[in-house]
């Protein structure tokens, strides 16, 4: 338990560090939220100056940060200049959409990777294993942008899937089943992109750790006693190989989150990716910091979950603590 507490404190420190850094970097960039307005001939410089004053754009950086911290305490996570509303209300619905996408993709990726890796590990060197190795290598070198564009191309050509968004225009008129189907159809492309991005790493790790375990003497012994192959593979070998894989869960969440930013922006999935991009383009300082913080939080929680799982799965960790 103390272990988990320590991890949480550590996470909190990371969050503070990230917020300070993103504040400083955002402030260092030239131009600010109102710069673009200066190009509008219909708005006078005096109006722009008055708005600068209202948003506190000319305050020194530490004061801006203190202002932001106060609003964090109120649970608002800052105030968006562009949306004229607290950042938390902007973040929450989009974070939910990002979670829907990444959790679906993570779950499916693991559900595919484990049997595929196991099968590959139990037939090392055969043509199937080689094919699997070839495909995963190819996927590993394809950048996420290219993969996303390729999938979009397929969607445009075939017309089987919508080319973006989260629901179709007539979503409100659909029944519960129709809504679910519509959502699944829209989820298909971005989730596939994320799964294809992560699959190679997962499959390779599952295969490697299982091959190691399958060569261990206790497996040979079990096989000699006539334990069926499938049971041996999925019950005994997998459990023994689980340790590095659980650590991988944390890593795979990190990869999915960074990948999802690109995929969301590409396929206009209404998650925090497009919000972040918009905030960078508009120099909407607090939204920028809030979004980065939210991503960091997901990452930390993911890692924490992986640690907790590891703690449960590996008796040695518990013994060390005691």
């Amino acid at each position, binding site marked *: 338990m103390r272990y988990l507490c320590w991890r949480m404190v550590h996470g909190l420190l990371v969050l503070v560090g990230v917020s300070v850094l993103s504040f400083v970097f955002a402030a260092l*960039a030239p131009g600010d939220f109102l710069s673009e307005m200066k190009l509008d001939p219909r708005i006078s410089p005096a109006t722009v100056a008055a708005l600068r004053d209202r948003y506190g754009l000319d305050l020194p950086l530490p004061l801006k940060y203190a202002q932001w911290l106060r609003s964090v305490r109120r649970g608002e996570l800052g105030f968006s200049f562009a949306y004229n509303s607290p950042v938390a209300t902007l973040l929450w619905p989009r974070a939910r959409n990002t979670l829907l996408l990444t959790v679906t993709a993570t779950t499916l990726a693991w559900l595919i990777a484990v049997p595929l890796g196991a099968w590959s590990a139990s037939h090392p060197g055969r043509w199937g294993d080689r094919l699997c190795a070839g495909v995963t290598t190819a996927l590993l070198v394809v950048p996420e942008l290219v993969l996303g564009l390729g999938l979009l191309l397929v969607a445009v050509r075939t017309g089987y899937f919508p080319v973006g968004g989260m629901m179709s225009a007539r979503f409100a008129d659909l029944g519960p089943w129709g809504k679910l189907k519509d959502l699944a159809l829209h989820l298909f492309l971005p989730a596939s992109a994320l799964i294809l991005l992560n699959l190679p790493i997962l499959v390779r790790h599952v295969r490697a750790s299982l091959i190691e375990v399958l060569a261990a003497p206790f497996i040979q012994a079990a096989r000699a006693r006539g334990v069926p192959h499938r049971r041996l593979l999925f019950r005994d070998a997998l459990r023994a190989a689980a340790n590095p894989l659980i650590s991988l869960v944390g890593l795979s969440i990190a990869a999915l989150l960074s990948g999802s930013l690109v995929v969301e922006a*590409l396929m206009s999935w209404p998650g925090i990716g497009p919000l972040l991009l918009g905030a960078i383009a508009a120099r909407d300082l607090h939204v920028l910091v809030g979004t980065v913080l939210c991503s960091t939080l997901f990452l930390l929680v993911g890692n924490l979950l992986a640690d907790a799982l590891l703690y449960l799965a590996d008796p040695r960790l518990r013994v060390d603590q005691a």
Partner: protein
Amino acid sequence: MMRQVVERSILRLAGTHVVHGRWGPTPSAFGSGLSLAAARLAALACRGRGRFSRPAGARLRLSAALLAAVLAWAASARTSSAQSAEELLVSRAEIGHQGGQLVVNQRAEPKTLNPITAVDSVSREVIRCTIADLIHINRDTQRTEPALAKAWTVSSDGRRYVLTLRRGLRFSDGHPFDADDVLFSFRVYLDEKVRSPQRDLLIVGGQPIGVRKVDQYAVQFDLAEPYAAAERIFDSVAILPRHLLEQLYTEGRLAETWGLGTAAAQIAGLGPFRFKEYVPGDRIVLERNPYYWKGDRAGNRLPYLDRLAFQFVASEDAQAMRFQTGEADIASRLNAETFSVLAKAEQTRSYKLFDLGPGLDYSFLFFNLNDLDSKALPETSRKQSWFRQVSFRQAVSAAIDREAIVRLVYRGRATPLWGHVPPGNKLWINRSIAQPGRSLERARRLLQTAGFSWKPDGTLVDGRGNAVEFSIVTNAGNGERSQMATIIQDDLKQLGMSVHVVTLELRALLDRLTGTHDYEACVLGLGGGDADPNAELNVWLSSGGTHLWNPEQAQPATPWEAEIDTLMRRQLTTLSNSARKRLYDRVQELVAQNVPFIFLVSPNVLVGAHSGLGNFRPAVLDHHTLWDVEELFWREKRSSATP
């Protein structure tokens, strides 16, 4: 003469007949709500018999019955008055039929639904469909036409406008509209504490315009000095619902109201559509305003469409894909490259593309002519001795191959420019401005007269022997501008100038242009807005914030800038259209002679729509495709979106 303009608009008014009370069930919704309440109370009065004990029961029953009677009377009175006095504007567009949904791509999310504080163009585009103005600029004819004001008169000195409002109109929540709403709206926009960006447009001759109620359906506006085309300032000034906003205004909470999270019932306007639903990050849906004040010749109330959905699609490519697959019904502001890609598939898909020709946007190259501190920016202020010479700027202009820009950057879908009024602005362009073709010969002659010479290796040097070398900045993320800068780089290389192209993120660039003045030359674009010269006042007045080459001057830096100032101020107070045109023609001549902006091209307005869309009449004025959204309709019943 102004009198003629007014007469013309009155003639137009005569053409738009006002029809009384033919619009069926919807306007009386408020009335029917009242009658419902009356019926319930009456029922209560009857049922009460068993419920209440005497004598309290009897009293209650009696008062309920009385109240019911009063309500019923009020309801019938309201219904009849609403039906008899509703002065609808009759559209002369093709008669369509009601139903269906239109899906439009929007490059970003709107940030607010508040017409008072919205500053970004995306929010304004959505808000535009939910609001109405007193006098409107027809985007097709580029002239003003009656809107909420059915007629107006102008005093002979051009300083007093009296607007007569349509009677019997209702906001989208059913609440009646009258002069008090107009008064309230202008009080809000003109209030300095509210800081509405609209305020600047409503200041004439340094004074806010005076607003006074004449009667329930007439409002008088007083200007501090005569103001040409004053009726154009009413365009896009949304009339606000006093009944919803007055309290918030007195509490000083107006700026925060009508954010995206607001419940639909708390927002009302006079536009063809009203807010229905916002899905964060994904879409915003507007629904038909059942109280809208336009009808068609067959007696149907506009708009025809039931719903209007804006879906947020950030990249232009993704927008084109959605349009191609039928997930969006209209494509606006296509770039030339996307347009040609979509054109290839036009035969097999069910959409039509339109090239409307040059719009109001214009792009240009300009040099830094600011009064610089020679210590802070020694390099740039040294180079300014070249930039300040008119013949240097003329030479650069002569060396630029505008036809090549049109061909290479815009695939032929743009028009070369030599003045700041593009051919899309039919009413104001000065067609006598010379349009010399590219001539390196002329450029060299101009440079020689200005004291430049060439080294044996072809490098251009100034009188002191310094090689002519400078950088052009432009904004990253606008491919067309950086391509133009590269073509200019190559053109000027042939004169022996060494030019570097630097792309900067837009806000960083604007910071340099208007803040630190740390740049040498820049490629940028302006335009949009209105066709009238007054829309560009801040660009051409030397004191203007968008007088980009040397903004916000205390005194005009050059005689020709002083002359432009005088001309622009004079046209502002000149009421005769032809006299104004003569003054503005002279401004265009001065700008073309002194080339503070070296004009490049005006890109064509490229749009597309699905073939089944009726009354689709795209215009070169902003908003190109949705300006007549109330008249759009689907020719056949169709499911509004494929998968």
